[in-house]
């Protein structure tokens, strides 16, 4: 429902069609949604957060606290949009929020009647009782209080990131910003000018008269090489003059190829010409529809050609609002009175001016404003009015200055904080630096505190601030959190100063002594998509494909993500479960032969006269005594003595070694090796080449593996822990005889782009002997029953070599990273978590289960890996158990409450299968 059109005569035609709560209206190109609604006589646009009070439009810019609407539909639904910050396009769909069944008749107003219950901090004092009751109350509280509803579909918009570099970044295109940008550009600086609005000019748009000067200045800036970005908000200032700016290419709810662009601007100098935000006055019912900020009324009249009311009362404590009276009269409205809180105004005026006000109260409701009641000089007066323009002074927009950790100085003449010292190369100019109307002292509350709103968006009244003070919440940080003022989506843009004034009043201090909370980015709410940029939709992480991806894909495996890699987990036959497939594959390896892709393992070629010495710094085992063509298992410690990674090392030549280690630790190992070489031992003559992606690797394992290899290579296979080279299917390969599966095995490495024919030859040979490819799941079954550790499982960064049973392999001479830390007493504590094997009496042990005594609850360890025995299917596991090395034979319970599993287990030796390694030793 709308009132009469409030459009001032003349101007362009209203050609843009839009809807609000289902009703159709028309707007002029250039209108914000707020301007268009006012032009159509729509004054009720929202219901407040807590009390569901009727609200209208208060401001003309992003500081708007009341008029939050949902714009757009489906995947482009954008809730909590300020109606003042969206420009109407043809077909725009907007809806009110937080009102049911509708704006006019909202059941939530019942909460307004119970307002005393919902004062600040109510949730600490009400709804007491057992926790179960709270879960009941919570459902209703959530539904009653609220902002908009988020969309349920994935974001259909596209976002981009861009970097820019400039000598001078000017934020704001008002008179100060335009002048600064022009001067800098004409002095030969690379200039970037960012303006939040769709149109440049800032305050000139409401008070500047002829706008030709704006167009001329912009043209001059661009002619001198400057770049001008409109509809671009400087959102945050970061270290070393990095400024993030959000550019809107389309309006919320609109569709287009690109919605927003996030700029990362690195500037040599930042000029903040961000202007000042007008303050409301604190009086009774200052939140009614029809009560607006005075400069906003001027913006609507002069920029948008809309007069939000016919009979206006102006309430002010400064000179600026007198200009609003003139603008209203120009537009054909009636200025009923100017109510000035000061004793005597300093501006001569043709209007009815009432001075020395002590009490103001707005009268009205969901149908708009009906009048204003005043007490001035002891006398009560009533004014009939449908528009109240208020001005409580101006707050310089110091947010960007504060993001950069700039200090603020207090100026008593304007009762405001202005930018002070900063370590950033940043200057504030114009209104942002304090060029605003003078104030006559601290603004007071002009009405009953319970009905006088301070933070409009979070429904915080002056009485709430008094209540917080009374209850002992006296620091500004406590006040903020207890009352939630300044914590709404507007970050207190129109409420901070009034709150501080009241806090200072209660404390009997000046405002600067009361303190100020910290401004943080973003300056206005921004959508997560803008931060994700091109990384949305799964594009943020690269997909690393193994070289033999196509060969595996043809076999339809179950893929396992491992960091950015994908490796085959199993190759189930039709109808097979994962467990069935894994058992089948593992049995094939134990009884015949199998191949598994091991390409993702970290691999480093370490060469040079001191290669062995470098490896002995990183590895805690022997390396230097390896003969050419020989290798061994090895592990690496962190500086604090914990096992960090494990793998194998092979001597391929006089001064040429290959080090392999875990897939997941590859990046860490590369950094670790570089650190060891460059920082700890730079005198060593060795070079390290990361060959992880260069080599594809295939492990051939099983009792028939040697036969397969010798067939394909027409030469003898290397002995256990030996290395050899030769061709398979014409491709040169490196063969390393090492076993992770527990059977005789050979790791075969070829250059990735040549490896296809190698896989083909191996697969054919393996299948011909009733074998098959196997995946990570089968590999787990194989290594668990051998008691082999894995990085990320048993090697979890908290276990030493002794805890893992590997201490016999460590070099007695020391000299490796971590050696100096091994003597500390905590590493010898008897109750350390130590690696053990577990056998289930009945049932399946769950991975991750806690180990507790049979009749107790104390957690003494956990299961790191669980599997079925490949021959019998019995449930076995590896676990870390307090003092485990001394507890063989004990009975415990492996308990997993989240999976409802309690399984009795025996503590046994680690090696369930072939403890002596007879399957692969020569």
């Amino acid at each position: 429902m709308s009132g009469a059109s409030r459009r001032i005569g003349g101007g362009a035609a209203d050609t843009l069609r839009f809807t609000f709560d289902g009703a159709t209206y028309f707007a002029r190109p250039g209108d914000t949604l707020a301007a268009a609604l006012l032009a159509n006589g729509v004054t009720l646009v929202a219901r407040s957060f807590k009390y569901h009070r009727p609200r209208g439009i208060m401001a003309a810019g992003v500081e708007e606290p009341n008029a939050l609407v949902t714009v757009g539909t489906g995947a482009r639904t954008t809730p909590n949009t300020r109606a003042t910050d969206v420009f109407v396009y043809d077909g725009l769909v907007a809806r009110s929020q937080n009102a049911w069944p509708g704006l006019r008749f909202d059941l939530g107003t019942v909460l307004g009647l119970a307002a005393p219950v919902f004062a600040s901090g109510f949730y600490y004092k009400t709804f007491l009782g057992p926790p179960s009751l709270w879960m009941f109350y919570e459902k209703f509280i959530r539904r009653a209080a609220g902002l908009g509803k988020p969309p349920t579909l994935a974001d259909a918009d596209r976002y981009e990131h861009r970097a820019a570099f400039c000598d001078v970044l000017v934020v704001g295109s008002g008179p100060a910003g335009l002048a600064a940008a022009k001067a800098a550009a004409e002095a030969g600086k690379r200039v970037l000018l960012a303006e939040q609005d769709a149109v440049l000019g800032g305050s000139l748009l409401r008070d500047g008269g002829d706008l030709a000067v704006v167009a001329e200045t912009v043209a001059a800036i661009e002619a001198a090489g400057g770049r001008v970005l409109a509809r671009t908000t400087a959102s945050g200032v970061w270290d070393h003059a990095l400024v993030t700016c959000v550019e809107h290419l389309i309006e919320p709810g609109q569709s287009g190829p690109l919605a927003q662009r996030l700029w990362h601007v690195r500037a040599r100098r930042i000029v903040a010409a961000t202007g000042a935000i007008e303050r409301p006055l604190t009086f009774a019912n200052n939140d009614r529809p029809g009560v607006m900020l005075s400069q906003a009324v001027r913006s609507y009249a002069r920029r948008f050609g809309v007069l939000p009311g016919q009979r206006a009362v102006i309430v002010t404590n400064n000179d600026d609002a007198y200009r609003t009276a003139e603008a209203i009269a120009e537009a054909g409205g009636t200025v009923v009175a100017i109510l000035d809180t000061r004793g005597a105004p300093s501006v001569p005026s043709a209007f009815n001016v009432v001075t020395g006000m002590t009490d103001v109260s707005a009268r009205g409701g969901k149908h708009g404003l009906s009048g204003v009641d005043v007490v001035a000089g002891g006398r009560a007066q009533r004014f009939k009015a449908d528009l109240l323009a208020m001005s409580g002074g101006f707050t310089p927009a110091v947010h960007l200055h504060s993001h950069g950790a700039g200090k603020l100085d207090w100026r008593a003449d304007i009762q405001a904080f202005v930018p002070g010292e900063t370590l950033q190369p940043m200057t504030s100019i114009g209104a942002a630096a304090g060029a605003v109307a003078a104030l006559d002292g601290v603004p007071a509350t002009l009405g009953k505190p319970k009905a006088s709103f301070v933070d409009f968006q979070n429904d915080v009244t002056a009485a709430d601030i008094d209540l917080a003070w009374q209850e002992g919440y006296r620091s500004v940080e406590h006040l903020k959190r207890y009352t939630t003022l300044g914590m709404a989506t507007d970050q207190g843009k129109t409420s901070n100063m009034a709150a501080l004034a009241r806090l200072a009043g209660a404390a009997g201090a000046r405002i600067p002594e009361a303190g100020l909370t910290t401004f943080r980015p973003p300056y206005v709410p921004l959508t997560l998509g803008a931060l994700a940029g091109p990384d949305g939709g799964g594009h943020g992480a690269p997909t690393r494909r193994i070289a033999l991806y196509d060969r595996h894909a043809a076999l339809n495996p179950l893929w396992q993500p491992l960091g950015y890699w994908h490796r085959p987990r199993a190759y189930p036959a039709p109808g097979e479960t994962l467990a069935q497939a894994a058992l089948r594959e593992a049995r094939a390896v134990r009884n015949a032969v199998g191949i598994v892709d091991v390409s993702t393992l970290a691999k480093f070629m370490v060469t040079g006269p001191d290669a062995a010495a470098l490896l002995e710094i990183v590895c805690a085992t022997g390396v230097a005594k390896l003969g050419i063509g020989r290798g061994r298992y090895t592990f690496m410690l962190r500086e604090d003595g914990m096992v960090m990674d494990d793998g194998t090392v092979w001597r391929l030549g006089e001064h040429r070694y290959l080090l392999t280690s875990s897939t997941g630790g590859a990046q860490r190992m590369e950094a670790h090796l570089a650190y060891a070489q460059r920082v700890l031992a730079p005198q060593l003559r060795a070079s390290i080449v990361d060959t992880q992606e260069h080599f594809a690797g295939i492990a051939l394992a099983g009792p028939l593996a040697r036969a397969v290899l010798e067939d394909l290579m027409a030469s003898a296979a290397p002995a256990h822990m030996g290395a050899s080279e030769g061709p398979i299917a014409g491709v040169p390969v490196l063969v390393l005889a090492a076993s992770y599966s527990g059977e005789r095995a050979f790791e075969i490495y070829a250059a990735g782009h040549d490896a296809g024919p190698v896989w083909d030859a191996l697969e054919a040979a393996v299948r011909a002997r009733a074998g098959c490819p196997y995946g990570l799941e089968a590999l787990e079954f194989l290594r668990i029953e051998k008691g082999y550790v894995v990085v990320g499982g048993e090697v979890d960064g908290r276990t030493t070599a002794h805890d893992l049973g590997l201490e016999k392999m460590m070099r007695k001479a020391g000299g490796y990273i971590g050696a100096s830390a091994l003597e500390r007493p905590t590493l010898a504590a008897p109750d350390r978590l130590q690696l053990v094997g577990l056998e289930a009496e009945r049932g399946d042990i769950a991975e991750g289960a806690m180990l507790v005594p049979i009749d107790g609850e104390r957690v003494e360890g956990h299961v790191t890996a669980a599997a079925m025995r490949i021959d019998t299917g019995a449930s076995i596991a590896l676990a870390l158990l307090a003092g485990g090395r001394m507890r063989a034979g004990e009975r415990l319970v492996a308990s997993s409450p989240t999976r409802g599993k309690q399984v009795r287990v025996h503590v046994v030796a680690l090696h369930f299968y072939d403890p002596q390694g007879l399957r692969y030793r020569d």
Partner: protein
Amino acid sequence: MLLIACPHCGSRAQTEFDYARTLDAIVPLDAAPEAAMTALYARTNPRGEDDELWRHSQGCRQFLVLRRHRVTHAILAVRAWEAM
């Protein structure tokens, strides 16, 4: 996001670099156990300037020493790491 002037590559964004540790957290290979524990767990952590080891992993991959003020993030000096 810091801007770091790599001596080899010029000014680059922090995302190109990996922070390693403060210089006083380097545990020499021949450190006695006491000295190792001090370096690992009892660092000075001043509320002011400190020397840090960084690596330009996405650029020249060299180790650098930054003198950085740990509160203001001002970077006072950058030099290539050289063994002492």
